[in-house]
């Protein structure tokens, strides 16, 4: 039975290879979908499903989205549900939080998370803490989404990763998808979640196509928040990553496989709550841990993971100190050669694996 299923699945994959250029949503085969389209689909489906859901942010309506994530939504849903805001983050983030308090389910888009710093008080003090301060009287069902982290050539003020900042705070859920399926399933979950969710996208991933399974194409496809996914099985070292860096880990793993080193690549999917169990289980198998992130090293996502592993059962399974691969501890420079050397490259991951394995 299992072999029949395998045969059918590989048959489907062959069909999907042929159909790759076509976007038949009702086709039983898997299709290629970009992260951008996956996010668009997620919002479209959730807007349709629940009247209380609405989107606000700069350029989300008539411009179709600064990065075209909300393409077509204003045309379909109109002014009431897709709202263009002035360039006033603190104001519109506060308005979004207030709307959530009064019973709506806003999606608040920050053109990039760098601008969310202007509104961070509303995210933390008005959204994250309110359910606790009110001892359960006042929930805040809101999603803050937008591109996070380094892009290409946008320099220091537009390249910061906020995963660590937001993940520091109780009361928030922080999600960081990698693939198109991640993007769709996690955004739908985030919108349906009755709590404040910070949804960190990545501009460089928007245009990347991924195979999306039939299951993922369904309008009810959701990925639970708080569970990591093993993207690649391996025995020698565990690579834990999120967002775009997962691609680099897989690429590094492919190179290392040729030398006989099998990496297990874990896609965190959610930063807070952290799926420590998935990481621990993997370490108990591989005995080596490397975290890979685009953000700065100090007090970052990797630092947290390493701390947890130290404090948990997996520590005794480590054959070498766990290490972090991170962005360089500097503001992001502009010149291409400098920028390229400010974030982890595949060679950095390979180098760190070999150092950790002492090969």
């Amino acid at each position, binding site marked *: 039975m299992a072999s029949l299923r395998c045969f059918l699945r590989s048959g489907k994959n062959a069909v999907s290879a042929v159909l790759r250029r076509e976007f038949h949503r009702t086709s039983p085969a898997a299709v290629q979908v970009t992260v951008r389209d996956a996010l668009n689909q997620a919002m479209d489906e959730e807007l349709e499903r629940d009247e209380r859901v609405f989107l606000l942010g700069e350029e989300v309506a008539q411009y179709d989205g600064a990065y075209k994530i909300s393409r077509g939504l204003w045309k379909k849903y109109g002014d009431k549900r897709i709202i263009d805001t*002035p360039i*006033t983050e603190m104001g519109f983030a506060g308005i979004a*939080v*207030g709307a959530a308090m009064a*019973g709506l389910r806003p999606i608040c888009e920050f053109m990039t998370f760098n601008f969310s710093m202007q509104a961070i008080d509303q995210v933390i*003090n008005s959204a994250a803490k309110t359910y606790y*301060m*009110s001892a359960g009287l006042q929930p805040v069902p809101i999603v803050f989404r937008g591109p996070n982290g380094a892009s290409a050539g946008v320099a220091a003020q537009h390249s910061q990763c906020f995963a660590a900042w937001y993940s520091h705070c109780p009361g928030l859920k922080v999600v960081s998808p990698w693939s198109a399926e991640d993007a769709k399933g996690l955004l739908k979950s985030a919108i349906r979640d009755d709590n404040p969710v910070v949804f960190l996208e990545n501009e460089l991933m928007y245009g990347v196509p991924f195979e999306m399974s039939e299951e993922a194409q369904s309008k009810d496809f959701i990925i639970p928040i708080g569970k990591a996914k093993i993207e690649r099985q391996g025995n020698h070292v565990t690579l834990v990553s999120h967002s775009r860096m997962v691609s680099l880990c897989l690429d590094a793993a492919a190179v290392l496989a040729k030398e006989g080193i099998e990496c297990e690549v874990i896609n965190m999917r959610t930063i807070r*709550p952290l799926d420590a169990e998935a990481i621990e289980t993997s370490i108990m198998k591989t005995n080596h841990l490397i975290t890979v992130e685009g953000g700065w090293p100090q007090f970052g996502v990797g630092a947290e993971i390493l701390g947890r592993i130290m404090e948990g059962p997996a520590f005794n399974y480590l054959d070498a100190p766990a290490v972090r691969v991170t962005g360089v501890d500097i503001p992001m420079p502009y010149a291409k050669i400098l920028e390229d050397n400010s974030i982890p490259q595949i060679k950095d991951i390979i180098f760190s694996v070999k150092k950790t394995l002492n090969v």
Partner: protein
Amino acid sequence: MPLPLFPEHLNFPAHNASANDSSITKQIFFSTNVIRSLLRVVVSARTYADFTPQATFDIKKCDLHKLEEGPPLQAMLSREEGLQYYRTMQTMRRMELKADQLYKQKIIRGFCHLYDGQEACAVGIEAGINLSDHLITAYRAHAYTLTRGGTVREIMAELTGRRGGIAKGKGGSMHMYTKNFYGGNGIVGAQVPLGAGVALACKYLGKNELCVCLYGDGAANQGQIFETYNMASLWKLPCIFICENNKYGMGTSVERAAASTDYYKRGDFIPGLRVDGMDILCVREATKFAAEHCRSGKGPILMELQTYRYHGHSMSDPGVSYRTREEIQEVRSKSDPISMLKDRMLSNNMASVEELKEIDVEVRKEIEDAAQFATTDPEPPLDDLCNHIFYNNPPMEVRGTNPWTKLKSVS
């Protein structure tokens, strides 16, 4: 005429005279009261229906900004309304004074921002809207928690951090919530965009409700408030912005903080009115006017209430380093909102002194009972420490202070 003499009416201590009155004033007061009470003996010997059921009062004209006309210059007050406003304001006053006492006894800790002096604002606003409308304010919020449906008991127990508190002891003075009341907000100015968001939801859901969004003269200079004015106006949100101008932002007088102290004009393109915030009827009529403006779809409107706080900014501020005791005393004797209402009602035979006294006694008892509860109710259980992080979430583990301590958290 025959006077059935009731000893208690003649046994008349000058309890209505304040300590500062001269003895001549006391005597005049005393004798007019005796006469009045003798007459009232005749009156009260019949029925209470002999009180004036309703009277009309002249109220101050409001200064207007971008408005052709303002609220009416006269307000009607029924006996029932008057008694209810009196009771509520007196409850607020007594509650705040009790909080002052408890704070000095160290039974209340942390921040405690008291509202005494400003009662006419909270009661007047609520009289101009419905409970189905929405309201949000900053941290000087105990009075609004009351007008929005909270009880004195649960407010005081929240101040003392007990499990019977309105937020189960987890919020404290600045974080109290009820239905359609969004706190209690600690970050100056942050509540204003939130209020506009509530107003957006009102408009979105089409329920003809509005949101009253309060802030102080200190907050009025915050950038996010101007961002909110812009969006509220652009999108015609049903939002009444209200600046409670009590002349001091913490220890800084309005003249030292604001280039323009015409707070009712600061909304620029938003129509505004400046209101006597010590006169409850003025506040009520202005609120009704503003509510009508919003409900007719004209968009937001701004009210500046000129009011005064007797206490300092908070309990850690004596309140006399930046203003004189004379100033505070002058407001207390000339503009106290409770006295103003009381004088109006008494001079128009809308209530008796005894009746109001009786209300005072009842209020005092209510406050005492609440304080008793607030000091004896147990603190929240430690099991509750990590609860209420997320809504509608399965139970989860929260890290304690050390790696071996795993605490339980439920929604």
